[in-house]
């Protein structure tokens, strides 16, 4: 373990930017996967989705942090979604004005962004526990993380299909299936595996951070703790012959005495 590594030295700084890469909301947690896989078939689609996601999520999480904590969690989640719906109205109007055709192509996936897991789940469990400034910065990092993933996948799929930003690429073998969801799944899976590889390498360097082996140790200790009564019984059973042996010996020795 190299404690002097660059990552360990500046870990606190790296943690601020986790949303971009190491805790990427698409590649690591698997949230907001559907629009990336299904409709990010071109650069323009991806750009609109990324912008809509950024506007809706950023302002929703920011505004929802002012919702009083006295309201039950279940109702708070509904309120967050309602706030997202309210923000969606001007956002869709904005995109309708400039990209109406592409917005129609994206179909239900843009409205569905109001229920994305960053708003419904992670805002409650992660973002609202922070100070406003840090929350805004981490949210921004998550936006950037989503942006680069969807733009990369959309652009690659469009290039595979033989065009880029609507311009046909000459002398290029087009893959018609690039717009099908399975290609999106494959590309996302490949990117996720690369991120996971880098994460594992970084986590192995960091002694304090939980690694896969750490989790394995935790699970094994839990299993051992659960199976302790059985182990105790077995120990008891094993001890019994040892206990009886001296008595036998004593029994044997008694007559001699």
């Amino acid at each position, binding site marked *: 373990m190299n404690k002097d590594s660059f990552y360990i030295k500046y870990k606190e700084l790296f943690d601020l930017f986790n949303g971009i890469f190491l805790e990427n909301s698409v590649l690591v947690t698997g949230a907001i996967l559907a629009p990336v896989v299904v409709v990010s078939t071109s650069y323009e689609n991806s750009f609109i989705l990324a912008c809509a996601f950024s506007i809706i999520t950023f302002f929703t999480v920011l505004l929802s942090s002012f919702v009083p904590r006295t309201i039950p969690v279940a109702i708070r989640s509904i309120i967050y979604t309602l706030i997202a719906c309210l923000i969606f109205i001007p956002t869709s109007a904005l995109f309708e004005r400039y990209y109406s055709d592409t917005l129609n192509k994206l179909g239900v996936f843009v409205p569905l962004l109001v229920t994305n897991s960053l708003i419904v789940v992670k805002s409650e469990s992660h973002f609202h526990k922070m100070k406003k400034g840090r929350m805004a910065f981490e949210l921004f990092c998550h936006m950037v993380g989503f942006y680069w993933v969807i733009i990369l996948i959309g652009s690659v799929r469009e290039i595979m299909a033989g065009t880029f930003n609507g311009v046909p690429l000459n002398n290029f*073998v087009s*893959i*018609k*299936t690039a717009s*099908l969801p399975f290609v999106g799944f*494959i590309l996302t*899976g490949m990117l996720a*595996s690369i991120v996971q590889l880098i994460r594992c390498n970084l986590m192995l360097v960091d002694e304090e951070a939980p690694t896969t082996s750490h989790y394995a140790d935790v699970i094994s200790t839990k299993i051992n703790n659960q199976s302790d009564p059985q182990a105790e019984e077995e120990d008891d059973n094993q001890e019994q012959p040892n206990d009886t042996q001296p008595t036998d010996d004593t029994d044997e020795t008694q007559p001699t005495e």
Partner: protein
Amino acid sequence: MNINEQRLEYKSYYCDMLICLTATTILPLFMYGTRVIEIVLVALATSLITDSFCVRVLRKRHYEYYDYSWAVTAMIFASLVPVTVPYWVVVVGVSFANLIVKHPFGGEGKHIFPPSAVGLAFCILTWPEHMLKYPTPFSTITGQTLSYQDSPASIMAIGGTPSIDLLEGLLGWYVGPLGATSLIIITTCLFFLVIRRRASFLTVSFAILMVSLGAIYFPRTSTTDWQSVLFEMCCGAFYFGLVFFTSDPDTKPKTPSGRILYGIFVGLGVVLYRHHGVVELEIVFVIILANVLAIPCDRYASHIRSMFKSKRKNKIEEIQRVELIDITNVARESNKDE
């Protein structure tokens, strides 16, 4: 079975498969010329390079001496393409099979779909103009002009009747994929694989039964029943796919009743695809779907079996009860008489 025995088992399985797959590529040599060998060699070389790259470079392991899965993948892929397919399609398809389908799931013995089937499906969907355009037999041999013909599958898809007689069907002298046309060679391979316990006769026979029933009761052509069955066997590389894809030891069901259920699913899938699908070589897509059902097939088959057993038990108990009641009634009556 220990690891060494398992490895030997795998090795002999791959050897058997390779023998059969080599046999299927001999007849096309006479029909299409030396390009058959070129396609097979390109597929084999690509498969060896990509597989060894994944094993040695990405997974950092030694190459196992018993592992000929790369060769089987390549040979199956090469057998199901038309002889005029460009080499780069073969390279992309086989690379896709190894790099995307086989190794991300753990490599040999751990894949959930047959790699060659997924590679073929990818190529069929992406480049149908190369993958589903078949030359007329004997037209690719040097000195003759190259001509293309509609395959039996495409003719039957529009309600037509292919011109294939029994002899042509048995010998494979009709338009179709490179090594998947000769019924007699594939049947010989099937018997060889069944005797060597590689292929499941139950799966194959029940799938054929379902397709034959579909051909008789829901015919796609206006011919006699047996001709309809022959055409359904000949088109879409159904028979080839059935024999070679369903004998994969990693993806086929483990119990005999599960294999029957699996065969029924495959047969039904083929019939449905042929009536409602738009893509030829439907067996590839059906096998990919059926592999998802392979494990549930085992489970549901055991459920059905236990259900029948319990029903039979109940019936026996009822019969015994009725018999007892009859005996007691007879005894009472005899007592009354006395």
